[in-house]
C-alpha cells in the first residue's frame, strides 16, 4: 500500500516540479515535461492500479481470504 502511494505521489506531484528541466529533452517532438503530464503519469497510474489489484488479490489467496463472498 505504501509503495503504491509513494509512486502515486512521485508521478502525481513531485515529477512535475521539474517540468522546465524535463522540457529541455525533446522526443519525437514532445518536450518531455509536457509528455510526462499529458501521458506518462497517466500510464503509470493505470499500470499501478492493475498491479495493485492483482498483487492484493494474490496476497488474499495466499492467506486463504479469497473465498467468494455472499
Amino acid at each position: 500500500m505504501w509503495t503504491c502511494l509513494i509512486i502515486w505521489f512521485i508521478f502525481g506531484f513531485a515529477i512535475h516540479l521539474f517540468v522546465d528541466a524535463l522540457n529541455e529533452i525533446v522526443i519525437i517532438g514532445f518536450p518531455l515535461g509536457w509528455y510526462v503530464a499529458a501521458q506518462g503519469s497517466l500510464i503509470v497510474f493505470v499500470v499501478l492500479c492493475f498491479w495493485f489489484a492483482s498483487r492484493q488479490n494474490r496476497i488474499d489467496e495466499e492467506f486463504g481470504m479469497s473465498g467468494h463472498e455472499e
Partner: protein
Amino acid sequence: MANGRDFTSNLGRIYGFYTGGFIGFVILLAILEQIGVPNNVIGYLFIFFTIAVYAGIGIMSRTMQVSEYYVAGRKVPAFYNGMATAADWMSAASFLAMAGGLYAQGYSYMAFVLGWTGGYVLVAVLIAPYLRKFGAYTVPDFLGSRYGGNVARFIGIIVLFCCSFTYIVAQVTGAGLVASRFLAIQFEIAVFVGLVGILVCSMLGGMRAVTWTQVAQYIVLIIAYLIPVIILSTQVTGIPLPQLMYGEVLQQIQELEATSPALEGARAFMQTPQTFTQGLNFFALIACLMIGTASLPHVLMRFFTTPSVREARKSVAWSLLFIFMLYFTAPAYASFAKLEVYSNVLGADLGSLEAVQGLPEWIFIYGPLELVRICGVFATDAQAVFDACTAAGITSLSHGQFAIASDTVVIATPEIAGLPYVIAGLVAAGGLAAALSTADGLLLAIANALSHDIYYRMIDPRASTRRRLMVARVLLILVALLAAVVASTRPGQILAMVAWAFSLAAAGLFPALVMGVWWKRTTKQGAIWGMISGFCVTLFYLIITRYFPETGVSYFLMSPFGEQITASGVGWFGVNNISAGLFGIPVAFIVTYLVSKGTPEPSAEMQAFIDELRLPSGKVMMEEKS
C-alpha cells in the same frame, strides 16, 4: 430477472452488436450526408437515435427489487463496471470542457488531466474495496453505520447533496449546450430536452438501468471523442495515431508562436507555472481533484455493484484504463484545434467587408450563439465584425482580438478543421452521452440518499419495498427538475462548477471515509466535527471569493490577485477558488484527529467491526433482504 445469468454471460455479444450497430449508423448518416440530406436533419437523427437507445435500455432494465434498484443486484462484472464507471465519471467537463480548457490555457490545465486520473489510485488503495466489503447501498449509509447514528449520516447527506447538485447543474448545462447547437433551439428550452433524456434512463430501473445505459454511453462517447482526432491526425501528419503524432503539432505551434506577427505577446501554449503562486495553484488543483475523486459519492457508489471485493479492486483498474483512453487524447485534441486556429484564422485580413466574409464559415455559426468574439463583439455576421474592427482600427486578426468560448472548442473542432458535418453530429452525440451518463449517476446518488438514508433509515424504517421505490422515483424527478431550473439561469462555466463540487466533496467526505477505515480510534464526534468544519471552510471560501469579494478583502484578510477586486479574483495566498479544498481538507483532518483524541474511544464492537472490514473475505457486513 429470470434470465439474469444468460444476460451476464452474453454481455460481450450484446455490446459487440451494439458497437457494430452504432458504427453502422454513423456510416449510414455519412452516406445520407453525401447524397444531400440537410445538416440539421443529421443533427436531429444523431441526438434522437442515441437518446432512444438509452431509453430503450432504461425501460428494458426496469425493476421493482430494492437491491436491483440501488446496487444493480451486485452482479456487474469488473470489466463492465469499469466501463460504466468511466461513463459515470467522464462528464461534460471531461468531454467538452477539458480539451477546451487545455486549448485556452495550455499546460496549466494539465492539472485537470493529472488530478482526474491520479485520484483513482486513492480510490483503489484506500477506499473502494472497503466500502464494497461493508456492503452499503449509499455513502451516507457507511457513515451512519461507522459513526453510529443519524447525525453523521445526515451531515453526509448534506455534503453529498451540495456537491452532487453543483455537479449535476454543470451536466445539464452541458447537455443544454449541445442540444441548443444541434437542435437549433433556445438554451433554456434545450436544458429541459436534456432533462427528459436523463430521466428516461434512470427512472424505472434505478442503478440497474443506469449501469447498462452507462456502458452503452461509454461506447458512444469514446468513439465520438477518438474519431475526429484520428482524422485530424491523418490530415496533418499522415498517421492515424494522434496521441503519438501530436509532438509534431506541438513543434509547429511553438514555431508559429515564435514567428507569427498575429501571435505576438500571446501566452505560450506550453507555458509552465513560473511563479510560486502559479505553482501553488497548479499543485493545489491536482490535490483537490484527486482527493475529490476519491470521495465523490456517485463514483464510489458504482463500486457497490460488483460481485465481490476482488472484483471491486479490478474494477477500479478497468475504470481508470477506460478513462485514460479519453484523457490521454485530450491534450492531442487541444493541440490540433490550436494549430488549426493559429494557422487558418489568426492573421486573417479584416480590411474589407469581402475579406471578413471570407473568414471560415464556422465562425459565423458559433458567433450568433454568442460563443465566438472578434474585435470585442459576437461574430453574428460579417457586417457586425467588419464595423467593430474598423471602428477599432484593426485590419488584421491578432490573438487578442479573437476569442472562442472554451466549452465550445470540442464541439466546434470538426467544423474548424472542415470535416464533414456527420463528424460534428457524432461529437454532439458523444458530448450528450457524457453529460447524460454523469447526470444519471449523480441524480441517482442524490435520490438514493434521500429515499434510502432519509426516508427509509430516518423517517419510516418499516416502509414497504413498493413504497420505498415510489419515494425514490418521485424524489428523482423533483431533484432533476430543480437542477434544470438552476441550469437554465447559466450560473457559471462548466469546468469551474465541476471543480467546486470536487473541493466540497473532498473536504466534506474524504477525511471521514479514510479515517473511518484506517484509524480505529476515529470517534463519532471526531468525524462529525471534521465533516462540518472541512465542508464549511470550503463553502465559505467559495462563496466569499465568488460572490462577496469585497467582504473577503475587508474582513477576512484576502487579497486581490490583480489590480482590481473581481468575482473569483480574490483569496488567501493567491489560491484560486477552484482549489478551495486546499484549506478545507487539512482543517477536516486536523479537527477529526483532535476531537477524536479528546473523546472516549469507540466501543470494542466497533473496533472489531473495523478489523473485519479490512479483511477481504467473509460475509458482506450489512446485508439486507430485498
